[in-house]
């Protein structure tokens, strides 16, 4: 028992050792006296915004997505929502749709969402059928018509039952930039004509 207790203690000591070393006294440095943090005054810093009309940042639609590890090199077109409220998708599984109401890969924040059918009647199986086999850290690149590119590394590949797709998190407008690729997977329900699951790839920007 005694021995086991030693390790955490050592850790604590090691952590304390990381604290800034007090400057030697009389070194002429302004005394970093341990005065308590000043109590916040009642004055609130209210954000002030100029009312002049600001030109909005025009979004930069991705036009191509490429994943060598999955043999994907696809055209991407902007899409919105269907009248049913579902995300609109190009009918051809060989073409992916970028959710144009959300961020693009060059937006300062939020997730770029690109989705494609895994398959559709009268078309060959789509390239996104290979998403489920993507290894962690596989490279995904997205390009815009003006030559801009953005590179990502695969962080996760997840199956979600369709009703439980966390749209709020996946379609986030705020927070760290990420690329979200969505297609279908799991079992195909012949009665509904749809797959049970969504296959979701989340990729984070390469440094």
């Amino acid at each position, binding site marked *: 028992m005694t021995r086991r207790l030693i390790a955490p203690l050592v850790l604590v000591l090691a952590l304390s050792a990381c604290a800034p070393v007090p400057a030697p006294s009389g070194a002429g440095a302004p005394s970093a006296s341990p005065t308590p943090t000043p109590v916040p005054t*009642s004055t*609130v810093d*209210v*954000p*002030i*915004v*100029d*009312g*002049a*009309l*600001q*030109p*909005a940042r025009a979004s930069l639609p991705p036009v191509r997505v490429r994943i060598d590890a999955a043999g994907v090199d696809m055209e991407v077109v902007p899409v*919105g*929502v269907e009248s*049913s*409220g*579902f*995300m609109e*998708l190009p009918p051809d599984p060989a073409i992916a749709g970028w*959710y144009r*109401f*959300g961020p693009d890969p060059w937006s300062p924040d939020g997730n770029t969402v690109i*989705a*494609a059918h*895994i*398959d*559709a*009647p*009268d078309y*060959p199986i789509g390239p996104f*059928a290979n998403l489920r086999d993507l290894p*962690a850290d596989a490279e995904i690149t997205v390009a815009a018509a003006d030559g801009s590119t953005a590179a990502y590394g695969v*962080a996760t*590949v*997840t*199956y*979600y*039952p369709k009703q*439980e797709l*966390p*749209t*709020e*998190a996946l*379609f*986030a*407008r*705020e*927070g760290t930039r990420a690329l979200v690729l*969505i*297609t*279908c*997977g*799991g079992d*195909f329900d012949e009665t509904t*004509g*749809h*797959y049970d699951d*969504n296959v979701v790839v*989340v990729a984070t920007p390469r440094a």
Partner: protein
Amino acid sequence: MHVHPNPHFARKYSQQGGKSRPTKEDNVRKTIAAGVVAGFALAAGLVMPAQAISATTADLYVFHGIPDTPVDVWVNGEVKVPDFQPGTFAGPLDLPAGDYEVVLTAPDAPVTDPALGPVTLTLEAGKSYTAAAFLDADGMGTAKLFTNDVATTNAGEGRLTVRHTAAAPAVDILANGAVAFSNVVNGAEGTTALPVGTISAAVAATGTTEPVLGPADVAIKDGVLTIAYAWGSLDGETNNLKLAAQEITVGHTNPGGVPSGTAGYAAERDAMTQAFWIVGIAALLAAASVGGVLTSRRMRATKLDS
């Protein structure tokens, strides 16, 4: 606006699409997945909400629409916005529901020497307001508490509110050349939902289309309330009519889902692949057992021969 990702949403399958036991690789992926979902939550938590409305508080913005007169804004006897410049917005102030006394003074003047006010603002919990100080139709300073429509917008839409806060007669407000709001008088407002994009907005005297203000490009953003104020004066001598815009993130609507497969070909292929392997392995096993029998027979035959 808050994200509550649930890592337990994730249901893991084996790579062949069957519901067999999770492999080691699956477990690794699951772990990474949980990490990233947590990452999402963390990122969402770090973002300062555009509105801090709660069940007990209101958001208050202040718009200064009186030309050429910087002011101090006093709320309940305290300067909240010092040296507040015309044409700017302050806020949001996250205030508990209740009554607030607001006074505008010249900068550094005592609260007992008001330039405008005191006015009492009654704020209800869960609402967003913009208190505007502006010129009335006759060019006199006035104040009004506007309520902002901060309901979530439909996917692909933004919301536009226009407010007439200028010393000017009734106007029509034009969007892309067509009348969007007609006969808007001083102190009045109008609100509409619009598809995302940029509209060319202009203000004209009611019944005319010749702009007295604009046209100017106004961005309509998904999940954003844009409030445009016509402010200043159309008075002949001091014509300083201007447009000011305030943006409030109100929240967007996400797609209801992503139905991204309608044929079942990939599932069929998976089933075929699986069947192929099952048949193939069975065939191999069968071949092996047949071979084994033959071998032993041959061996027996050899023995007999010898």
